């Protein structure tokens, strides 16, 4: 080690007192143009001329939650239908679609989650007309060819086969089945090996006809485009498109499960993957903001109680968090972490302790203020890219929120009290209803974890 050479400059600055931050700048969600076309498409446009980039995001208000309406086990149907959109249209083969998109240096993506199916395109302004026409083609004229489906199905089956190597995936899959029981949320969006193998072209066509129609569609344009240009582009591609599908009634909202301990075997595991939780509120619940803030305190950010306890105090884990997953027709709240095998039970005891403390005592003023500052200060960071802005705008319509929701959101957060948080914890956290799902070295932990209930062992395949 060489001798240090110290500067002659003497540091006279008093560093013991943190600087006082200036006044935060007011942030509002960008103003947007809104209209509905004659065939029922909801259009949102946010013009932003900063860079020559445009994105268009198409969201259809039906997703994987509806899979089971098409057969006893058709999990994965919505997601495969979306994936198949770019695998050939009446105008273009799958290869032509990929070639054209990539040659423009653009992106064209499709997918589904529980709540919706989507198609998204993003490019330089000078290529936008072309990529937008391509997006319109895959939405309006998909072929669902049998050989393409065969390929997508095989790829999906191989991915599913690979996923059983992942402890997190196993813990979450078993958790989902135990928490949601017979509700559609018990199935994964990507499906399972039996369901995927059973999906045929007829299923795709039925799902497509049901979900992909103008009345189900919300389109958001963000970037270097005016409302007039956007509406005109949309009209020229979608003017003649009509809604054919019958409305389908909403499946039932999931009911609260009973507690249970589920162990899923993962060969050679050197850690336990934990997911512990139960049913929670849906996205439109009036208490959503309150429960969301409560979750942030519990495990929703780095300085949360769960991460502080499990990582920074005990060194049990590299990461620990909690998540409130609220969808249109249901949701759940859970704690997720991966820990040393031999302290699996100790970890669960700490998690239970934190849940009980949140129910039994009000947070300190300082902790509540910190989390409010985090949530409100973080908002402008979420408005940096056209895609994140488009998603936020669409969510207003998808979840039936007011147009000024994001602007009143911050105000609502700041008005919440310590009593509100405790009340939310008492109402929405139920230690006696928790499902404890653990994937890992089952033989080493089975005795230990029986203190939380009689373990049920799942052998993955």
């Amino acid at each position, binding site marked *: 080690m060489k001798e240090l050479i110290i500067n002659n400059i003497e540091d006279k600055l008093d*560093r013991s007192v943190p600087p006082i*931050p200036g006044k935060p700048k007011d942030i509002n969600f960008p103003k947007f143009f809104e209209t509905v076309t004659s065939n029922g498409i909801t259009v949102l446009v946010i013009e932003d001329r900063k860079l020559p980039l445009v994105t268009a995001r198409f969201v259809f208000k039906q997703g994987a939650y509806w899979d089971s309406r098409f057969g006893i086990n058709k999990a994965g149907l919505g997601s495969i239908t979306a994936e198949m959109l770019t695998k050939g249209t009446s105008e273009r083969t799958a290869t032509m679609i990929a070639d054209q998109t*990539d040659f423009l240096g653009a992106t064209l993506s499709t997918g589904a989650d529980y709540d919706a199916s989507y198609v998204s395109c993003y490019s330089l302004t000078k290529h936008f007309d072309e990529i937008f026409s391509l997006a319109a083609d895959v939405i309006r004229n998909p072929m669902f060819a049998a050989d393409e489906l065969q390929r997508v199905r095989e790829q999906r089956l191989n991915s599913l086969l690979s996923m059983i190597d992942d*402890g997190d995936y196993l813990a979450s899959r078993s958790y989902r089945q135990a928490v949601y029981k017979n509700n559609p949320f018990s199935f994964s969006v990507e499906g399972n090996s039996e369901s995927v193998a059973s999906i045929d072209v007829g299923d795709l066509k039925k799902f497509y006809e049901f979900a992909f129609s103008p009345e189900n569609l919300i389109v958001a344009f963000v970037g270097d485009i005016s409302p007039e240009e956007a509406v005109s582009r949309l009209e020229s591609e979608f003017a003649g498109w009509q809604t054919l599908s019958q409305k389908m009634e909403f499946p039932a909202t999931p009911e609260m499960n009973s507690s249970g301990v589920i162990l899923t075997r993962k060969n050679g595991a050197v850690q336990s993957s934990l997911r512990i939780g139960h049913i929670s509120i849906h996205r439109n619940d009036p208490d959503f903001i309150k429960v969301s803030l409560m979750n942030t305190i519990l495990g929703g950010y*780095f*300085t949360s109680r769960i991460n502080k306890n499990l990582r920074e105090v005990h060194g049990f884990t590299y990461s620990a968090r909690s998540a409130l997953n609220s969808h249109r027709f249901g949701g759940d709240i859970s704690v997720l972490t991966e820990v040393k095998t031999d302290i699996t039970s100790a970890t669960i005891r700490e998690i239970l302790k934190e849940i009980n403390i949140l129910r039994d005592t009000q947070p300190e003023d300082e902790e509540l*203020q*910190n989390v409010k500052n985090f949530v409100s200060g973080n908002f402008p960071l979420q408005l940096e890219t056209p895609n994140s802005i488009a998603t936020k705008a669409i969510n207003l319509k998808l979840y039936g929120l007011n147009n000024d929701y994001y602007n009143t959101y911050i105000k609502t957060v700041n008005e919440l009290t310590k009593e509100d948080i405790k009340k939310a914890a008492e109402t929405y956290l139920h230690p006696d209803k928790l499902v404890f799902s653990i994937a890992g070295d089952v033989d080493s932990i089975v005795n230990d974890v029986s203190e939380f209930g009689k373990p049920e062992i799942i052998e993955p395949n």
Partner: protein
Amino acid sequence: MTSILSNYTSERVIKFEEFTLGNGLHCIMHKDNSNPIVSVTVGYKVGSKDERKGLHGIAHLFEHMMFQGSKNIKKNEHFGHILRSGGSCNAFTMQDATVYFETLPSNGLETALWLESDRMNSLNITEENLENQKSVVLEEKKQVFDNAPYGNMFNDVFRNLFPGSGYEHSVIGTVQDITSFSVEGAMNFHRNFYSPSNSVLVITGDINYGITENLVRKYFDGLRTNYEISRRPNVIAPVENSIVEDHYDNIQLPAINICYQVPAAGSHEEYALDYFSEIMANSESSRLYKKFVYEEKLVRSLGIMNYPLANSGALMIKAYVNPGIDVTLVREKLMNEVKLFADEGCSEREFEKVRNSLEFSSMAKHLKVQNIAIETVFNHLNFENAMRINEDSERYLSVKKNEISEVVKKHVVDANSVVINYLPANATLKTNEAENR
């Protein structure tokens, strides 16, 4: 076909102002007042390649310790201050550098500078915090590498591609070394490498140049400097023979990684090899995707990663092989495709595709001030040239179509390849299952 390239212009120049303090700290600022957020990034020129034997993993463990408190900031309060201003922060350790960054509402700029200067100046490492973070890092090692399928593949590649050099060992290190780090060793590491003269501070976003420079001077001018950083030389030996290494793991599908040692970051070859990577893989219109995934269904997915380093580079062709398919056959076919490219090069359309995609992606990634900051950190640490962010397009455009195949012919050669195979521990069983399905 209309030529898209005729319009190719860097429509937006990212501008910087720079200055250097008396203690050697270099500061680079980029002003963009369109969104009220600011990104503060500090890059230190120290990484896992600087670790001596017995201290493998210390650069990364040290990154954790930088969040464990300094003279005026308590354990976890770095996160605390940033998060309650609404910001986010994190850090990462690589072979050549360690980078710390926070992005936060712009009214918190001074807070970020106060935090970064305090831990550059007066890190406070206690026995208790060191032991706590050793446990966290050992769990990180399990979560990211040992308990994750194919988790150690990247480390296996580097061990074979760069023997004897600073790139041979993994960034995460070994359990034995991590367990044995002492408080004194950690403090020595800080005194040696965490010096203003060995770092760069980049501030991007909603700032005023004059005010920001004054704030930087306020917090960083008084910091001590180590002018004589002790560093191990990083000598890279070429790979002389081809190497094939088999690993049996708890996995369902085999994976192959075919790797080559290639020229260092910033070389003309690096840019040429980016063309090669994008023409061959990483999109559904690429050659290898069409042949191996789409037409012949040999692999589930594949990708090429061109990973430039300060003193060398790694080009990795990775494929996840479908059940029942012979791994050796896939490897031979992949290598044949590489050879075909070396012999025949690419088409005009393939060449243009890469240029178009670059034009879009460089514009899109620079929407985020944090991305600009991190790219600038590397441009300074590697080349002492912030303006490279704007010159990148020209560097790509300067690559000629026929040069790509020449570079491939010279550097992507079977005889100097490292092949890492990951095979299911019970391979026979899995093959049968696949046939029965």
